[in-house]
Each structure stands twice: as structure tokens, then as C-alpha cells.
């Protein structure tokens, strides 16, 4: 199994060896898995200290001197304090800066607000010039890190915990392309669209739905920006009820992007967004605890909902058939 830190480390080592201009910037902390890069290229590693704003602008300075710059941190530290520096020094300036965020979503929620990152996709996708990707498995992570390395602009790559073992969900020959959705399982009763580390969770749900005789399509949406609105248009054209699932606020992330795409078709489909509700927790809570604390729907509630949609559709079709 390959962890998030290891896949980033492998990538850095490879691109670092190819062109000789890849830098890794820390604002303190340690990302386990990137040590081989640091050992091999000590002159291309810089720890600027616990100074997140400084880190972004220094990285921008390096990038504007022709370097390929990667900046890693826990997502909250990576993006929130230096948001203005990211907005101006990375997004507005079209800087080739790759922001690697770990501990996204509720994956480190027990630390409280300091590590709860559920607004990150919303703010990052609102930035012009920014690319936003949330890899959901090992193939997506490898392919998207490679493709993003080629981009002439800033990128935010969103990961769960650095020691999270990336599952292998796609077949090795599956084409993973920035800006494109991937159909993981076929189905014509409903569609479940998942992003990032909710992809394996969604796959588990699909299997549960199948036990109930429900054929639910699973779509992976690792690329939040650019966003594959066309894939949503297809689902609407088929009149499939749609569920989105993400470890992020229901405001501004995958669910919002899909809702916008549905609305712009001018047609409607039954639609649900599964994510973190618009509330902060004021209790100690690991991810599992908070899922219940927030009353986030799980497999049984969604299964019942899909059954309702199948029933309604069948009634409509019977009506048309009369």
C-alpha cells in the first residue's frame, strides 16, 4: 500500500530528478514519505519555519525564478492564514505553485478547528486561474500529480491524512484526465458522485445498494476545477437522481459544483448533497463521531431515498405508458 506522503514523495523524486528544478517548501511539520527527495536534493528543500504567509510568498518568488515549487502543509495551515498571499501571489500571478494539503476535511477533526478543513475547496475553486484536484485513489493521485506538474499556473491538491493508504479503485488501464469525471460502476437507478477520500466510502455504499437490487452508477470526480459539467449534463439527460458525497462543507464544494451544473441544464433531477453541514463542532470529535453528531446521512437513509426515486420514476413511466 502507498500512503499519501509516499505518493507525493515518489512524485517529487521523479520530477525532481528529471529537470533539476523542483523545490519542496515546508512551513514546519514533517510529511512522512518525502524524506528521499530531501536527502537526494537537500539544496532544493527549504523549511521557512512556522510562517505560513512567508512560505507562500517565498514559494512564489522561487516559482517566478523558474523553479517548480511544491508547498506542503496541513490544509488549514496551508491555505487559511495565507489566503491573501495565495490569491495574489499564486492565483492572480498565475504562478506555477503546487499546494499540497493533507489532513483535509474531518480527517484530523479531533484536534478541533485548528485542523478542520471543510471550506477549502469552496475558497480555492472561487479563485480564477486555480486548479483544484481531490484524488480518490492511487491512480488518480499519481496521474493528477503528473498532469498538474505540467500546468502553467497554481494547483491545489487535496489529500486526507498523510499516512492514509490510498486505495486502488480504478483498473491500471483506467484513463484519469484532469477535468474529466470517471465512471467507476454503471447503473441506471441513480448516480452517486464522489470526490477525494470519499470515493472508497461511496464504493462501499454502491455495494450495499446492489444488495438491495439497486443499480447505482458511481462517478468519481477528482477534478473539481476544471470541472466536468458535461458528465453531469449526461446524468440529467438520463434523468438519474443524483447524490454527491464529499468530506467538505455542503456549501461550495463538489455538491455545489454539481448543483450549478444541474441548474444550468434547465432541467431538474432529484438531488442530494452529502457532506459536512454548515456548522462547526463544539465537542471533541473524531471523523466517525462527528458523522453521527452532525446527523450526516449514511447508507441506509440513502438507500431508502433511492428506492423512493425508483418508485416515483416507475410510477411516472407507467403514467406515460397509459
Amino acid at each position: 500500500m502507498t500512503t499519501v506522503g509516499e505518493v507525493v514523495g515518489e512524485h517529487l523524486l521523479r520530477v525532481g530528478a528529471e529537470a533539476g528544478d523542483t523545490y519542496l517548501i515546508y512551513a514546519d511539520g514533517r510529511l512522512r514519505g518525502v524524506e528521499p527527495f530531501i536527502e537526494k536534493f537537500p539544496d532544493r528543500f527549504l523549511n521557512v519555519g512556522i510562517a505560513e504567509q512567508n512560505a507562500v510568498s517565498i514559494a512564489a518568488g522561487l516559482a517566478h525564478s523558474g523553479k517548480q515549487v511544491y508547498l506542503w502543509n496541513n490544509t488549514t495551515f496551508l491555505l487559511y492564514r495565507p489566503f491573501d498571499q495565495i490569491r495574489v501571489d499564486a492565483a492572480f500571478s498565475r504562478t506555477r505553485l503546487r499546494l499540497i494539503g493533507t489532513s483535509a476535511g474531518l480527517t484530523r477533526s479531533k484536534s478541533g478547528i485548528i485542523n478542520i478543513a471543510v471550506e477549502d475547496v469552496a475558497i480555492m475553486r472561487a479563485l480564477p486561474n486555480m486548479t483544484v484536484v481531490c484524488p480518490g485513489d492511487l491512480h488518480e493521485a499519481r496521474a493528477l500529480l503528473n498532469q498538474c506538474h505540467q500546468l502553467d499556473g497554481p494547483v491545489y491538491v487535496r489529500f486526507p491524512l498523510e499516512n492514509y493508504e490510498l486505495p486502488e479503485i480504478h483498473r491500471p488501464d483506467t484513463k484519469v484526465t484532469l477535468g474529466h469525471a470517471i465512471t467507476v460502476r454503471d447503473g441506471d437507478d441513480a448516480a452517486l458522485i464522489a470526490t477525494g477520500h470519499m470515493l472508497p466510502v461511496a464504493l462501499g455504499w454502491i455495494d450495499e445498494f446492489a444488495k438491495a437490487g439497486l443499480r447505482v452508477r458511481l462517478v468519481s470526480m477528482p477534478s473539481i476545477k476544471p470541472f466536468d459539467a458535461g458528465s453531469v449534463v449526461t446524468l440529467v439527460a438520463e434523468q438519474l437522481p443524483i447524490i454527491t458525497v464529499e468530506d467538505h462543507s455542503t456549501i461550495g464544494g463538489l455538491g455545489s459544483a454539481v448543483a450549478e451544473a444541474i441548474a444550468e441544464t434547465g432541467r431538474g433531477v432529484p438531488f442530494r448533497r452529502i457532506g459536512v453541514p454548515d456548522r462547526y463542532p463544539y465537542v471533541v470529535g473524531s471523523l466517525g463521531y462527528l458523522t453521527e453528531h452532525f446527523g450526516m446521512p449514511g447508507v441506509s437513509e440513502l438507500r431508502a431515498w433511492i428506492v423512493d426515486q425508483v418508485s416515483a420514476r416507475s410510477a411516472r413511466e407507467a403514467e406515460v405508458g397509459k
Partner: protein
Amino acid sequence: MTTPQQMRRDLIRMIARANTGHIPSNLSAVEIVYTLFLRVLKLDPERPDWPDRDRFIASKGHCAAAIYLAMSAVGIIDRQRLDDFNVDGGDVPATILRYGLPGIEPGGSPLGRGPSIGIGTAVAAKRDGRDSRTYVLVGDGECQEGQIWEAAMLAPTLGLDNLVVVVDENRLQGSFETRDVVAADLGARFTAFGWQCHRVDGHSVAELETALLAPQDRPKVVIAATIKGKGVPMMENETGWHGRALTFAELTTSLRGFR
């Protein structure tokens, strides 16, 4: 009677049982929070929100266990409530957050905000004519945050002789030794910014008490030289233990080798 050494034993067990980290950061700060709560801060355990109380802003919020133990020693927090330390659904987080425990002031992580919040409470005390002092605890690694120096530049101009910042100078941060990341004489820098500076042995309650209570005519900084992991030989001055939870074997070793 609570002693710093008893607090160390208690916090190691508390944190290890909760399977979380930051034990060394707690160990370095024990005498500082002990001295503040048991010798310095003007508080009323019966009225944690008493308007004339002194404020303790834990900017270095990840030494929450040490802070809770000191607060329980003076009767602000019921010791029993600490059984919920880092427990799902509880209100005793492993870093300082205002969830429901009495007497917790704003502050806590993310790093770097404490001195600014302290300026706010110190200015309010002045404007309201209250005899209330504000004490802010920061880490030395935390002083790499830019916001620390925004506050440091401003406080002398505002004439805040009721504001004290204590730096837990344990010389290690999450990644490396602090001096290898940013080499800085913090006392000299605060002095250059117009602060009254005291340097003490951060494991001496007597030295801390003297410095914390020393008269001041401007904002005061107390640079407390400490040992990260103090009391547990395998952790003392060693990087790598910062965020780690202990195994049972390590817990046993820690408590046996305790000094």
C-alpha cells in the same frame, strides 16, 4: 498539594490514555503554568468569568493538559472532568478550545494569535479602569509566526504595562531544532521592539514568580528557558516526539524513568 512533578506524571498518563501527542510540549510548560495559576494569576474559582480577573491566553494551546491540571489545582476545573480529555463527544479537547470548560479564555491554536488577543484584553482593562492583567503563553517556534511581531511592535506604543508574554523557549519545534530553522535571540528582539525583558530558568518556580510579578512600566516578556520533554529522559531535547502518541511500553518507560 499539587507539585510540578505530580502534574508531569498526571499529564503523561492523561495524554497517553487519550492516545494523542504533544507530551514534550506539555512537559516543558509545566512550571510556567503552575507558577501562573498557583502563584500569579488573580482568579476567583467560584466566578471564572469575574470581570476583574487576570486573563491567561494560551496561545501555545497544545499544552492543554498541563493547563487543565493547573486550573484544576486551583479549583477552576473539577478534576473529574479531565477524565474526558480528548474523548469523543466531550468538552475537554487536547488543545485549548472554548467548548464548555469553565475559565478557558480565547486563544489556543492555530498559533500566533495570542499576543494580539492579549492586546485586546489589556486595552479593554485599561479603558474600563480595571486592575486586570493579561498573561499570554507562546512557544519559541511559534515566534516564527508574523502575527507575533505585529503584536510585539504595537503593544509598547499602546503603553500596555498590564500585558505579559511568556515564551516557553524549549528550542524544538515540530520539524527540527528551532535554531536550525530560524536562529533568533527572542529576548533581544522583544527588547528592540520596546518590551521589558526578563530571562529565567523556565523550570524554576521561584525565578518565574519573581519575573512574572516584577514591576513593569511597559509590556513585559519573560523568556523562560525550558527543556522540551522535561522529566522524561528519552524525550528531553529529542525531536521526533512532538506529535506522537505513546505506546504502552513507552508510557511505562516514561513513568519509570521519570525524574
